[in-house]
């Protein structure tokens, strides 16, 4: 066990800190194109988002391991450096590099399976924030069971003609492009017959309808396709192999939904509330039943933090087996966070139920919001039930569900 990062990282950390100090207060001429990019401290230089992305790439603080020819830094991937960057940017209130489904999912996919033409055309612009992507996977009848999707793509005169509907498409309204799973071989069964297509969102025949969720805030959409026509070349991988193309990045998504350090920050915010507020003159923190539950949750979060350090360690030490530790993160993290936010609502009592622009909100109503939002995350991206199947079957090697006789 060794939790020190080593001397070379000390220097790197110093560099990052001095960069952060230089750029403290930087903010943007243009609005963030995607709501997933949080705006931080204001007061310093005013530049465009794309300029910022470009500076970060030049310094190696973003897109480190992406080849120079595709607009990246062209270095080696380094999880510890990434961690240091994230921590120091956050400490200094300097805006993080953009994230989003284009950067997190589409770029790695193209690097692995895209044509040279696709890499050239999309990667750099995506990194610079000039192309925002949304993901077109789920459909009303294909949620947990993605293989059942029904949106059709027919090849007509050298173009794909797409008809159907997608759902749960976050950021669709801000995006220039969608990477999308479409059934192109209707006679093939299930996983076979699906292709991975790249669709410009300005193509005629696309309609975006916002989908209101229980928080009344977060932005999902339904996207409808009516004879949407795109060039044949807008396919990644071969026709009918879209399932494999998508799966490479699905794995990527599951880990990133929950951050244990952010969860511990919430514990600390809750402690602040509990130290200040009272019931019948008694501080909430001095009410033993609440204190006991708070400690129970703090211990769980600490275990989760340690678990993620172990997952990080395996990235640095190839051969370390942390399969299960990685596999449980989505299930464990979303359930824990939902429980924590819900407990905070309980502790605040009636005040905890206040919402939107009500007077007396605590922390902008984020407790009640996140209590619901994390229920959404428990469901989305592979429900807890699906996660448990995966943990049992792939993690513990338990038998798969036997095949069902066709009715």
């Amino acid at each position, binding site marked *: 066990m060794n939790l020190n990062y080593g001397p070379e990282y000390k220097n790197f950390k110093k560099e990052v800190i001095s960069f952060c100090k230089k750029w403290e207060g930087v903010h943007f001429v243009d609005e963030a194109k995607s709501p997933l990019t949080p705006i931080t401290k204001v007061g310093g230089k005013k530049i465009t988002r794309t300029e910022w992305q470009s500076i970060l790439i030049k310094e190696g603080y973003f897109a480190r391991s992406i080849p120079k020819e595709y607009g990246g830094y062209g270095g080696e991937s380094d999880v510890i450096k990434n961690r240091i960057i994230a921590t120091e940017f956050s400490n200094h209130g300097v805006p993080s590099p953009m994230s989003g489904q284009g950067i997190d999912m589409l770029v790695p996919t193209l690097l692995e399976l895209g044509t040279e033409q696709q890499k050239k055309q999309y990667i750099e612009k995506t990194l610079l924030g000039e192309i925002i992507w949304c993901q077109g996977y789920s459909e009303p009848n294909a949620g947990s069971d993605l293989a059942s999707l029904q949106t059709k793509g027919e090849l007509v005169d050298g173009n794909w003609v797409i008809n159907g509907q997608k759902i749960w498409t976050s950021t669709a309204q801000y995006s220039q492009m969608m990477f999308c799973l479409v059934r192109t071989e209707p006679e093939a069964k299930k996983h076979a017959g699906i292709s991975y297509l790249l669709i410009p969102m300005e193509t005629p025949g696309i309609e975006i309808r916002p989908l209101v969720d229980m928080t009344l805030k977060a932005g999902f959409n339904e996207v409808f396709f009516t004879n949407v026509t795109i060039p044949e070349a807008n396919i990644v991988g071969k026709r009918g192999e879209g399932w494999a193309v998508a799966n490479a990045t699905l794995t990527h998504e599951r880990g990133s939904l929950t951050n244990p350090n952010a969860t511990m920050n919430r514990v600390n915010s809750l402690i602040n509330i509990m130290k200040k507020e009272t019931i019948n003159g008694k501080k909430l923190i001095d009410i033993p*039943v609440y204190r006991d539950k708070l400690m129970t949750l703090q211990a769980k979060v600490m275990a989760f933090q340690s678990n993620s350090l172990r997952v990080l360690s395996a990235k640095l030490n190839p051969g370390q087996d942390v399969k299960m530790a990685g596999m449980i993160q989505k299930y464990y993290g979303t359930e824990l966070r939902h429980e924590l936010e819900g407990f905070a609502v309980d502790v605040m009592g009636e005040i905890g*139920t*206040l919402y939107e622009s009500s007077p007396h909100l605590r922390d902008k109503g984020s407790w009640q919001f996140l209590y619901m939002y994390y229920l959404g995350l428990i469901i*989305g991206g592979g429900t807890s039930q699906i996660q448990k199947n995966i943990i049992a079957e792939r993690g513990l090697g338990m038998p798969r569900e036997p095949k069902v006789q066709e009715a």
Partner: protein
Amino acid sequence: MYFGLSEDQEFFKDNVSKFLQDHAPLDVIKKIIEDDEHDLKNNIKNGLVNLGINSLLIPEEYGGLGLDLLFATAVSQSLGENIAPFSFLSSYVMAPIALINGGNTEQKEKYLKGILENNYKFGVGFSEFISARNDFGFIFKDNKINGKSIFVLDADDVSHLLLADENGVIGVVDTSDKNIEIIKLTTVDKTRSYSEVIFKNASIDVLENSITDIEPLKKSIDAGRIILAADSLGASEALIRKAVAYSKERKQFGRAIGSFQAVKHMCAEMASDLEPCYSLVWHAAHCFDNIPDESRLMACHAKSHVSEVSKVISKKATEVHGGMGFTDLMGIHYWFKRIGVNRQNLGSPETIREEAAKIQNL
């Protein structure tokens, strides 16, 4: 010996349910909430009042139906089941019970008749008596009230407020008094209303019998808790019904999701947790009506236990609906949120359990 709702109670409950299904389906409720449609809301209110909901607990000598709390409990189940955008708790349960037990002859005459004739509506501000948060609180002195109360229930568009000071004395404030300020709060549950009220030397009419006797206040709280438990009971019943129905319809992996054991067991757990709650809530109401010695503890346990059970059900039922459960399309969240706010009203589960222990001298 018969344990359960009587035919009359079932009949009344069914009438309320039928009325709500006809006149207040989900899309109407959404309109009321999203577009602030007062006419639609008043239609519902008037329809329920026409069914006699306002006179349920008012004694026959004042012209009311003189029915018991078990009756009101049955009605509350239906209101929760249908997430009715209607203020039943304060005007038609807690206020009548406080007035019957705490008012002198004139006070009863005046206020009960007012409720009966649909001229008076009440909001209730007992939060500070039950568990005062931070600097909220107020003082009665010389028939004046000063201070502030948070989370006054149903205080939207009412003629009077009922307030309890820390000694359990109940005062009535007329909302036309210029020395009060009512600030609307927004909770996640928009089917009912909650307000903060600030009093600057406003006049109060103190309920005479509540000065020396804390029972009028306690009885009103007991009844309120049983009614809230019934509301969450009804809302949970609706959630289970919806989850089971959806699970039979929705297909994934070539089968109805309800044929997966994981989904089946979630539904079975919900049903097992909820089933004894019916009996507990009815039993509590029966004790309120007939066995006062056992009533307070039963009311506490009914409220806290149903709150815990409903919280879990509101999560599981949403999960069974998958992504659809999270959207506004099916509106599952209205039930989720109603249960969430009921849980905190008139005492959180932890607060009430502490009371339950004290009642038993533990």
